[in-house]
């Protein structure tokens, strides 16, 4: 039961990461390598501020803002300096490794002493078990973000962002500044990624310079899995798909650990999961088509 509850909390925190990837991968159709660095940057900035005695909510939002700045930088490298998309993300993430180390004052930053955002909420209802508060915080954050993003994508600005990802030539021909939209999209995406990192660090009680490693793949697995599960076509379902995908991914991981999988094999499991969700739905459709014809 504990594993299930813990997987739910982790899944909800990583759903925020998945929402970020719905924007960069699902909407803008780019594989943004900034993600691994931005996730850690969110954790590092929030952790540094928490240790410095700053309020947990302010520290968490500052972490998200740091990630957004990283995304904006990657976007500017792409659109202003004409750096190829993959390289732009790689440059930001590589630079962020050193910056994160400097911010944390080392490779690891324990957050045991200061009050985290989860503990702040737990203090409001001391009688409620910690695990329930953690899930409640996760649900609150994810639900607010999904609603806010859904509203954003129904605005003129959001629609322009959707159009750039779908057909940049068309978007430009109706007056959308595709460069500015790419920068905005990557900023927004990495802001969410860093928010996820800030929450994750507070949940596990420490920030680590390596904690972003593999987060891009984990997030992509959630987005692709969610898309296939919900057959998402429009943005509202794609956002919901990201959340569902993140939760299912964490339940698969929790299940594998319960079944005796070594924790060091988790990244391998995530990679295999991503490969499976990319390949299997198409194969199964073809197989079903073959049976129907046969």
């Amino acid at each position: 039961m504990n594993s299930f509850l813990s997987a739910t909390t982790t899944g909800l925190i990583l759903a925020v990461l998945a929402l970020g990837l719905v924007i960069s991968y699902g909407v803008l159709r780019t594989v943004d390598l900034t993600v691994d660095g931005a996730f850690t940057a969110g954790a590092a900035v929030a952790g540094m501020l928490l240790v410095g005695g700053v309020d947990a909510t302010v520290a968490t939002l500052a972490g998200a803002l740091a990630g957004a700045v990283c995304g904006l930088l990657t976007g500017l490298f792409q659109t202003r300096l004409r750096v190829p998309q993959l390289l732009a993300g790689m440059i930001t993430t590589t630079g962020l490794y050193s910056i994160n180390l400097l911010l944390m004052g080392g490779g690891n930053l324990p957050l045991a002493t200061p009050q985290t955002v989860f503990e702040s909420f737990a203090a409001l209802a001391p009688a409620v078990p910690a695990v329930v508060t953690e899930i409640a915080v996760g649900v609150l954050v994810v639900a607010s973000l999904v609603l806010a993003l859904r509203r954003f994508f129904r605005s003129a600005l959001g629609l322009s962002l959707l159009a750039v990802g779908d057909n940049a030539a068309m978007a430009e021909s109706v007056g959308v500044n595709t460069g500015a939209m790419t920068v905005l999209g990557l900023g927004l995406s990495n802001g969410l990624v860093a928010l996820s990192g800030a929450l994750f660090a507070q949940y596990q009680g420490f920030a680590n310079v390596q904690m972003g490693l593999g987060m891009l793949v984990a997030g992509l697995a959630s987005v692709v899995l969610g898309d296939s599960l919900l057959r998402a076509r429009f943005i509202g379902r794609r956002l919901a798909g990201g959340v569902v995908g993140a939760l299912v991914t964490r339940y698969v991981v929790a299940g594998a650990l319960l079944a005796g999988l070594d924790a060091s094999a988790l990244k391998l499991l995530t990679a295999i999961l991503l490969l499976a969700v990319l390949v299997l739905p198409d194969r199964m459709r073809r197989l079903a088509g073959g049976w129907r014809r046969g």
Partner: protein
Amino acid sequence: MVQLEDLHLTFGAGTRSEVRALDGVSLQVPQGDFLVVLGTNGSGKSTLLTAIAGAARLQRGRIRLEGRDVTKWPAHRRAAMVGRVFQNPYQGSAAGLSIAENLALAAQRGSRNTLAKALPRAKKELLRASVQQLGLGLEQRLDVPMGTLSGGQRQAVTLLMATLGGPSVLLLDEHTAALDPRSEEQVRQLTVELVHRHRLTAIMVTHAMEHAVTLGNRVILMHRGRIVEQYEGTFKRRLREQDLHDRFTEIRNTELLDESAADLLRRSYV
């Protein structure tokens, strides 16, 4: 009003594959004129439209739209004045967005992107009324993805989009070439109707001599990045397809003559 002064655009300049797409093109298209652009393959017809739309950077020359010098404006800024329809019916709209969302995007052309709702009820009803004019029955399907429409339906919606938001110039790049004959005729009629209704300055690139004869009030012929012939006024009204065929044959013969002369020179002196 579209004013083009001495436009020069060379692809692959200084290389063996250098192509002079525009070689000193100057042209004035007064407000409300419908100009048809004909030309041989690679004559620079489509590049001319791309340059006016701002999607290709000129090496030399000046472009004025409605009297404003837009030469250095990026494409998205020019879009406030310019509507564009591409040859490929799938290029001019976003397949993953609904018909209503595509139309809303076009209707917000030239205005600032804000966080206000893109499709409030009143606006959707206005767009529904616009779509009704197409006569394709799409007004009941505004929420379906654009990608589910046929090529002809999609090109008709794209054409409508190119006239929403108040542009004064309409650029049509062989926009009926990829359609079946029935859809082609529908889109062609719609083009004439929309151009007249919105009093647009239209520039249409085509390979069809028939369009050059029946559509518009002026025709230009392009060859190797230059305007080699213009028909307007009485000459345009009296223009027959055969005249255009004859002129093209003449151009091709001159070109063949040029090539054989160059070949002879190469053999004699190199």
